[in-house]
């Protein structure tokens, strides 16, 4: 069992969601986040005063999947989230020790 975490451009969320559903994913968690990578912040000007905003708004998508699905899902997310420009974000995969559905107590693949 693994967890895919993807930090993507907010306007790409819909496409990523559709791509994951098409790939057979049964659920996902989405969080609005802020951060910076190579794409640095931006400047805003109010009454002539320039402010530097260091953190860029992004969306974090988290998906649990079985090991043999991971490669396909990673490709699906990367394809859907890509614009080819700086700031497209990152994704990474981590091992998960235990997954349990709270209502039924099912564990592992049955809980997905």
């Amino acid at each position, binding site marked *: 069992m693994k967890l895919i975490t993807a930090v993507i451009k907010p306007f790409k969320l819909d496409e990523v969601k559709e791509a994951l559903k098409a790939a057979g994913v049964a659920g996902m968690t989405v969080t609005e986040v802020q951060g910076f990578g190579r794409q640095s912040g931006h400047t*805003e*000007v*109010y*009454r*002539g*005063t320039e*402010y*530097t*905003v260091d953190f860029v708004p992004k969306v974090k998508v988290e998906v649990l999947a079985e090991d043999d699905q991971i490669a396909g899902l990673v490709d699906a997310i990367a394809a859907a989230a890509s614009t080819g420009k700086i700031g497209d974000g990152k994704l990474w995969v981590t091992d998960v020790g235990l997954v349990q559905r709270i209502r039924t107590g099912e564990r592992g693949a049955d809980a997905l």
Partner: protein
Amino acid sequence: MDTGDAAWVLISAALVLFMTPGLALFYGGMDRQRNVLNMLMMNFWCLLIVPVVWAIGGFSLAQVPFENDWIGSFDAAFLRGLTIGDDGGSALMTAMFLGMFAVITPALISGAVADRMRFSAWAVFVPVWLILVFVPVFKWVYGGWLGQRGSLDFAGGTAIHVNAGIAALAAVLVLGRRKGWPGEGYPPHSMPLVMLGTGILWFGWFGFNAGSALGASGTAVQAFANTFLAAAAAGLSWAVVERLRDGHFTNLGAASGIVAGLVAITPGAGFVAGMAPIWIGLATGVVCCFAVGLKTRLGYDDALDVVGVHFVGGLVGSLAIGLFSEPEFFGTDVMAGLFHGGGLDLLLEQALANGVTIVYSFIVTGLIMLALRATIGVRVSEETETSGLDLAEHAETAYSTGTATLAGH
């Protein structure tokens, strides 16, 4: 009392009342998320305390009798004589209408002292400032010695905006800079609130200016038109300056220009006509757009630009009467401006009235703030300033995201 006049003045009074919540949103949106409720409450405090002080003695000292040179009297204290039995309610109506102006004038100062003033100090400052500064200046301008000399102030350019604007400067000089200012940036936390507040202010300002004709007259129509045109022209010129200087048409530029234009047309709303409001508005938008930059150059932390918008805008508008005043339309007891054959007389009277207001208001406001600093203290603790005034001063937060549990459960 003419029923048409009464209807217009009563509606106008309600419009002016609405400006204070509008101002609260205008300032609150520009403020930081953690201090927005403190800003709203500073404005709403004026809505709570000023009407009571106005009824007890503020109105009487400010206007009764109208002919007094320096200060009114206690003749109408506790609303004595202001009954609908005496004159059908005409005097009571005037007292209520002017009371709305008394509410918003100290509220204007709140934008300057944002983010760091103790609320209890503000709570005392408002009624004391109202009696010691607003009331006498209002008397001198309306019926008192400055007005008798011939200076003009239709709806409160000198008595309200220049007065509150220079008081804001004195207040922040005593209060000191915010932690981190000017190095740290504080961009507006909610521009939609600023735009909504601006709309409410513009709407309410029709009552402020056109209502100051104190009747449903031709002068009210002219003041209404001037309020419409000057605000648009000033918003336009401020926005264009920012587009040329900084590269974008901004919401805050448009909003600031509109408010600056409203401030500037206030003193002359019932004395200028034709294209004059547009010229006044265009000039004000440009001047105020640059004036808000003065604070960083001169080193006073006027958080939301009360000095740059209200003081400078009010002064520009008040002096502009000396150029554009037209007695042809507004009666021969009004002096003509320079552009209408009146020479420099009116311009000099305007300069005198504003000069006196600036000196008096700056000194007395500074003394009030020094007295508060020496007694109850005017600054919040450094910890409160960092963590936010909403929670520390009011035990409330503006944008709650979580659930809460009732205490004791």
